[in-house]
């Protein structure tokens, strides 16, 4: 019977093989496409960030940050229908009224955090999980809190699949930080808040840095950098991510 089946459909194995090889070819082509798109994105980010004068001592983005941006697969963190534009330098909607930030802003924020390989970082507002992944490539451990349950679950799953074992995702209210895991060398607050929660400032280590994007979901107006010095005193800096001088000519 099997032989009759084979004789009847003798072309089937060939057909299957062809389909599989086409799939494989398009998959590796896609992976290759993503990789080259990612590299183009990194070059663009590096170019955009040059001489913006975000900080007076900063001429360009840290190579470490650019390397990480070239590594993390952003297309894995965007919805299926946005995959083709995953490496465009713009924010994308990810559902629930949330966005995955503009890669340029992610790079600036990561750079501002000045994280090291031994650092422990807290992120409030996991969103897609992309920023956490970028941080996890640099820091020792990343703890991230997401308040919208389905979003948090999705990010948790994704980060696990991608093998980010040094990221812990928790679903809940980020206002009180993560006392047991702190104090932190760096904190990123991507969730909109009417003010900086006092518990987060308390959980920032001396010498630590906190970065907050201020603006709307699709447009970051400025970045807020909070620094705690060795005496525990807090100072903030408000940084424009654009190369812009508000005055023309001299006055």
């Amino acid at each position, binding site marked *: 019977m099997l032989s009759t089946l084979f004789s009847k459909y003798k072309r089937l194995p060939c057909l299957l093989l062809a389909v599989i090889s086409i799939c494989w070819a398009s998959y590796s082509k896609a992976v290759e496409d993503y990789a080259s798109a990612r590299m183009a994105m990194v070059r663009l980010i590096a170019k955009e960030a040059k001489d913006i004068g975000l900080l007076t001592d900063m001429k360009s983005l840290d190579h470490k940050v650019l390397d990480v941006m070239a590594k993390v697969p952003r297309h894995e963190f965007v919805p299926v229908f946005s995959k083709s534009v995953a490496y465009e330098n713009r924010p994308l*909607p990810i559902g629930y009224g949330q966005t995955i930030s503009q890669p340029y802003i992610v790079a600036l924020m990561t750079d501002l955090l000045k994280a090291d390989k031994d650092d422990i970082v807290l992120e409030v507002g996991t969103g897609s999980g992309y920023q956490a992944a970028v941080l996890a490539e640099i820091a020792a451990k990343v703890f991230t809190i997401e308040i919208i349950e389905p979003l948090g679950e999705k990010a948790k799953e994704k980060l696990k699949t991608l093998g980010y074992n040094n990221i812990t995702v928790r679903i809940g209210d980020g206002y009180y930080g993560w006392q047991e895991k702190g104090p932190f060398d760096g904190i990123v607050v991507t969730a909109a808040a009417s*003010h*900086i929660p006092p518990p987060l400032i308390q959980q920032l280590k001396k010498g630590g840095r906190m970065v907050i994007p201020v603006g709307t979901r699709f447009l*970051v107006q400025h970045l807020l950098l909070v620094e705690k010095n060795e005496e525990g005193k*807090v100072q903030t*800096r408000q940084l424009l991510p*654009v190369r812009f001088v508000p005055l*023309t000519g001299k006055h």
Partner: protein
Amino acid sequence: MSKNFDSHKILPLQPPRLTISIISGTALAYEILLMRLFSIVQFHHFAYMVISLALLGFGASGTFLSIAREKLLANFQAVFLANIVLFGVAVPFCFLAAQTLQFNPEEILWTAAPFLKILLVFLLLALPFFFAASAVALALARFPQSISRIYAADLIGAGLGSIFIIVLLFLVFPDKALSLLASLILCGAGIAWWETGMKPLNRIFFFLVLATLPLAAPNNWTTPLISPYKGLAQQMLLSGSKILTERSSPLGWLTVLENKVVPFRYAPGLSLNATVIPPEQLGIFTDGDSLTVITKQLENQAGYGYLDQTTTALPYHLQKPEQILILGAGGGVDLLLAKYHQVPKIDAVELNHQLVDLVVENYGFFSGDLFKGPRVNLYTKEARGFVEKTATWYDLIQLSLLDSFSASSAGLYALSENYLYTVEAFQKYFHRLQTDGILSISRWLKLPPRDTFKLLATAVKALEKEGIPHPGQHLVLIRGWQTSTLLIKKSRITDQEIAALKRFCSERSFDVAYYPGMATSEANQFNVLREPFFYEGAQTIINDRHSDAFFDQYKFHIRPATDNTPYFFHFFKWQLLPEIIALRGQGGMALVESGYLVLVATLVQALTASLILILLPLLFLKRRLPEKETTAQGKWQIFVYFSAIGLAFLFLEIAFIQRFILFLSHPLYAVTVVLASFLIFAGFGSAFSKKIIKEGGKWSGITLPVAAMTILVIVYLLSLNTLFAQLFGLSDVLKIIVSILLIAPLAFFMGMPFPAALTRVGDSRPWLVPWAWGVNGCASVISAVLATMLAIQFGFTTVVLLALALYCVAAMTSLFMD
């Protein structure tokens, strides 16, 4: 039936004027209702754009009718009726379909992808207006001898419709109003059946049964789907969120939200040094956004200490005010701060009566009756009107920060007139201050500075106009990372106050941006900017006699806002555009107020669509018209004439609405009274125009009203301000009567040029009647958008003068029309 052009003239029918009134009334009601619904579903400025564009449905009806005039007129009754039924069906369904197309308007700044959705929304919403306008245009084309009477019915119906919908929105929620409107239109179809003499008469019942369907449908079939990007939608995603109460009026849809799991903790501008966390709060959202909170009563006053850690608390540290006025009470946060500082007498003003009702009555228990008691007087009034009328002197007047940060940061208010932040308004506040009194204004902080500088410039101008020799001696400006607070003191700032100011700021890590005698080294200490922008800008605006050059060179528009150009939130300058586009990759779009770009985009789209709608029928007509009509002769005059009067009518209407908002001191009443009066009296004018033409010859219907309008408008421009100042103390009812009396003669004449000219077109070239109607419809759409744009740039007086010029152009063109 013969296919002759004027075949319809043999039918002995009267124009269905009652039906026309109902269609126009419901169409206008629908327009206002859509504005309400889309402000809930989306954001206000987006609502403004799609609805402006949807009104092009009027223009489209003209195009459609021009092309298919003969066939449609041959079956006038059936087509007329079909349009009304389709209008009734489209009213709910087009909205329901349009609201499912969700996206964030800000995405357009990054990619053109949402554009298709916007196009679809616009086309969907244009449909109902198309059907309504087609019915009216059909009647105009069918009864050219009754044009002035049909147009009168159209205008009067629209005027009544505007009153009807405002009243209705006080009574029911907007989604319910939508079903009611659909019902009403279908009833209108029944009336049309009777009025057009359709047989058998008892079929009217079919329409009446049809009309009950929208009301009989399940209760929530028209519920608005709120955009996931709005504050309320975001809150509803959190566990523990529970809607306690909802209220709705034309002023907004209020939602009271409770969350015991993830509390609101709303405390904008809180110092980084603060250790006290805000207590339990209830959130009140207006139209699903702009949050205000009611704070729970605490046993221990220290629990309110967080309020003292915001920039708004500054004036209480310079003085111990005895009597204060809070403009914009909202949920009572500023009131709580005043109570925390034990102010003996507090007056608070809030515009929205439903909000007052919620915070005072329904949730009074929650706040420990914050608004009650001998120390507090709460007035349900418009803030500026209250200040102009009150006889009380205040130690402190506080202008609250009630708009939301996200809306402010995205520049959604760029198009909204605001009479609280103008030079004249500041002067009025100043007049109610005690000798050492302080006016305190807090705003969201933007980078690079915009609001803050404009506020400062407005204050300096107001002080100068008050004859203060050194305005800089009366001003203090501080900033946190999120908010800034400006103090304007009636007397000079003292050394003790400066010492207190420095203490207040250093304890909270706020920066001082200006006080008289401030040294450069004191600037930019805590919230460090690349350069001390705020300090330098403040110094220039306050002390530099060349601040004019600074205003010119600054890349944002920060010249003082005035009552003539009341656009405090408009900062965009055209020369900024190329730079912003170049900075796109860095997120440079955040430097523009998207509200203004939306306005520009609306105008461009309206112009393009109008051009197509106006030119299209000409191509068709060319092939089918009588021999003598093949040349363009005559059409140019019709085009210029109907465009000019379409533009001019709305220019005048919009500019006068703004004048009367200040006089009636309530935006809602002003818009309703002025709009309805304009339409109704223009309707009377239209009805009367036939008589003028009959008695005074065919030119009189145009030249006479234009002459009368010119005189009236010039008299009004010269005398209205003085008159309003004299009559401001009158009661609200008397003010409304005065307003109607002032508008009536002007509107009466404004109603004449359209029917007078259209009647003549009807006499000589009836096939061009629908085209003229379409031209006028397109011009009206463009006019509304253009009026705002011109007012932002040049002020309302210019808009009025332009309207006059346009009417004169129309009058001159009419001389060449035959």
